[in-house]
């Protein structure tokens, strides 16, 4: 099992780069959405980056993930092309899903990214299915279901967890507890408030960790992956975190204390935490991280520019990829 203390300079830089890229992607979307050029509604992942990256840095392209409506971070962390994602969000023909899916449905099977999902609780059963495939192939790979605190109230999630235990499949449930499901607090909607405890109730180990700490996520995931590959079955990781924006872009957030986000941006910033840790243990130089920050801005600039210039789908695309026509 690889733990974060064993990560070399290159791997740490990669992790930081992924987190920074997600942050930049989302912060930029926040700006671009305000211009009205991006269709539909979009849920930003900013603030939660360390969870997607800590989890996916333990995975390869042959491992599977299943994502949620708030999926951009999971996609980037799993290696989806940022340019293709941006085009998808703009509804372009060259988007990762040819503009058919949009922000809530980005998928890339070649990266083991089995799809973002706009149905809360829709993903975990699918992840269990992929885990059955992994088990049949000798538990060399694992399947991860991302979900929020709100999703943990959905029966489909309970069913998936229990089935994963019963079938002893290499599934890992990652519950990102950001305190809210839409406009309702987890303090109200999650009876007992203990997501990990629920998972334990189904008969699997569950860890509670600080979701703004890349190292903590990475290590917890390392333990879950090791267990899964050892044929010991599923695990759950509950990561406490916050989201920097509203539920969707345009959400007035009347349910949040006025200073909440500003405060948490200081105390719960995975990038800042990563830098502080690097400064302490001298694993990577601050200058290297600064260079990544600059590079991320350029990458996202290019992605947005290309997406804006890209062509929309045409009429024939409406009828493609559907099996039967009438």
């Amino acid at each position, binding site marked *: 099992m690889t733990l974060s203390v064993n990560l070399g300079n290159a791997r740490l830089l990669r992790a930081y780069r992924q987190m920074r890229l997600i942050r930049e992607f989302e912060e930029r979307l926040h700006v671009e959405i305000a211009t009205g050029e991006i*269709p*539909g*509604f979009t849920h930003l992942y900013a603030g939660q980056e360390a969870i997607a990256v800590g989890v996916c840095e333990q995975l390869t392209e042959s491992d599977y993930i299943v994502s949620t409506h708030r999926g951009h971070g999971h996609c980037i962390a799993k290696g989806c092309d940022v340019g293709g994602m941006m085009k998808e969000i703009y*509804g*372009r*023909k060259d*988007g990762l899903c040819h*503009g*058919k*899916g*949009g*922000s*809530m*449905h980005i998928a890339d099977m070649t990266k083991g990214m089995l799809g973002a*999902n*706009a*149905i*809360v*609780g*829709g993903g975990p059963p699918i992840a269990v299915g992929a885990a059955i495939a992994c088990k049949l192939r000798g538990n060399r790979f694992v399947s991860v279901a991302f979900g929020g605190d*709100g*999703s943990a*109230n*959905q*029966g*489909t999630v309970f069913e998936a967890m229990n089935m994963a235990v019963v079938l002893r499949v290499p599934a890992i449930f990652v519950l990102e507890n950001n305190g*809210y*499901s*839409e*406009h*309702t*607090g*987890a*303090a*109200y*909607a*999650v*009876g007992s408030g203990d997501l990990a405890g629920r998972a334990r109730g189904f008969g699997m180990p569950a860890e509670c960790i600080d979701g703004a700490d890349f190292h903590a996520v990475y290590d917890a995931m390392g333990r879950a992956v090791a267990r899964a590959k050892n044929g010991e079955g599923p695990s759950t990781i509950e990561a406490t975190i916050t989201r920097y924006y509203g539920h969707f872009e345009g959400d007035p957030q*009347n*349910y*949040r*204390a*006025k200073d*909440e986000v500003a405060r948490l941006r200081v105390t719960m910033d995975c990038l800042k935490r990563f830098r502080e840790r690097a400064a302490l243990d001298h694993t990577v130089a601050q200058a290297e991280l600064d260079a990544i920050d600059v590079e991320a801005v350029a990458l996202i600039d290019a992605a947005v520019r290309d997406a804006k210039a890209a062509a*929309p*789908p*045409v*009429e024939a*695309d*409406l*009828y493609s990829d*559907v099996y*039967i*026509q*009438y």
Partner: protein
Amino acid sequence: MPQLTMRDALNQALHQEMARDERIIVLGEDVSGGAGGTSGEREASGGIFGVTKGLLPKFGEGRVIDTPISESAIVGAAAGAALAGLRPVAEIMFADFVGVCMDQIYNQIAKFRYMFGGKSTCPVVIRMAMGAGMNMGPQHSQTIYSLLTAVPGLKIVIPSNAYDAKGLLIQAIRDDDPVIFFEHKALYPRKGEVPENAYTVAFGEASLVRQGEHVTVVAIARMVPFAERAIDALAKEGITCDLIDPRTTSPLDEETIIESVEGTGRLVIVDESPPRCGMASDIAAIVAQKAFHSLKRPIIQVTPPHTPIPFAPALERLYVPGPPRIEAAIRQALKDE
């Protein structure tokens, strides 16, 4: 008469009915919002589309219930509360999420009255926002009323304007049977004259939105204002149509449709649901059976293609039938070869 949006008309109906009958409860995700939040603002939402605004401050937490994300339990709890004497109005935020709670709708509430030998009623209303037009993608844009119209035991209501929305919702709440109440998202801002007082619009009575002599057009929900535009444009050329809005697809006012077809001999049906086993094909079948000899031309169905609903605006625009397609269909119905 005051002009209200469909959203406000629905909101007014809920306020008036809840004040009239204390057995009425409202339950769903974020129907008030703010519970467990950090701002202390208890009604932080009032429903994601604002339809349940102001209910919590007026009627309290006992009757205005924010639920966890648990659609099966929402509909099931509404069913149980109804059996126990309450009159629940449940909200499924988007009609697409019916996929999660289909059993409670299909096997439970729809069957109680019949299956229990008439010993129970199930006065549940399940409201849900539906429809394309806002680029919300394949899992947040469906209409699904055709699917649920196919279920015996359910009443299916689909208003197209503010006046009908209010009257139909009040009727739905007072009705002793389960009612699925569809609200087209793109129609929430549509304004119309709405009387201040409470009133009902009966189920199974279509509304004749336009009166004409050449073609019968049947349209549902957002297709009604689209058909109005097409018909009004054609009127300038002297082509006039009956425009029938069924308002409820179960029960369906067959009589009004058939009477009109007997007069015009030509029928265009405009439906935002997919073409197979949908309301358009259902109405076409009824007319073919009951008014075959009145038809001068084949029935024309204007529907989306048999595909999921695409996200990209460029595709969604093509997916949703609009006034130009409706106009073309009416012209085609008038061509006599």
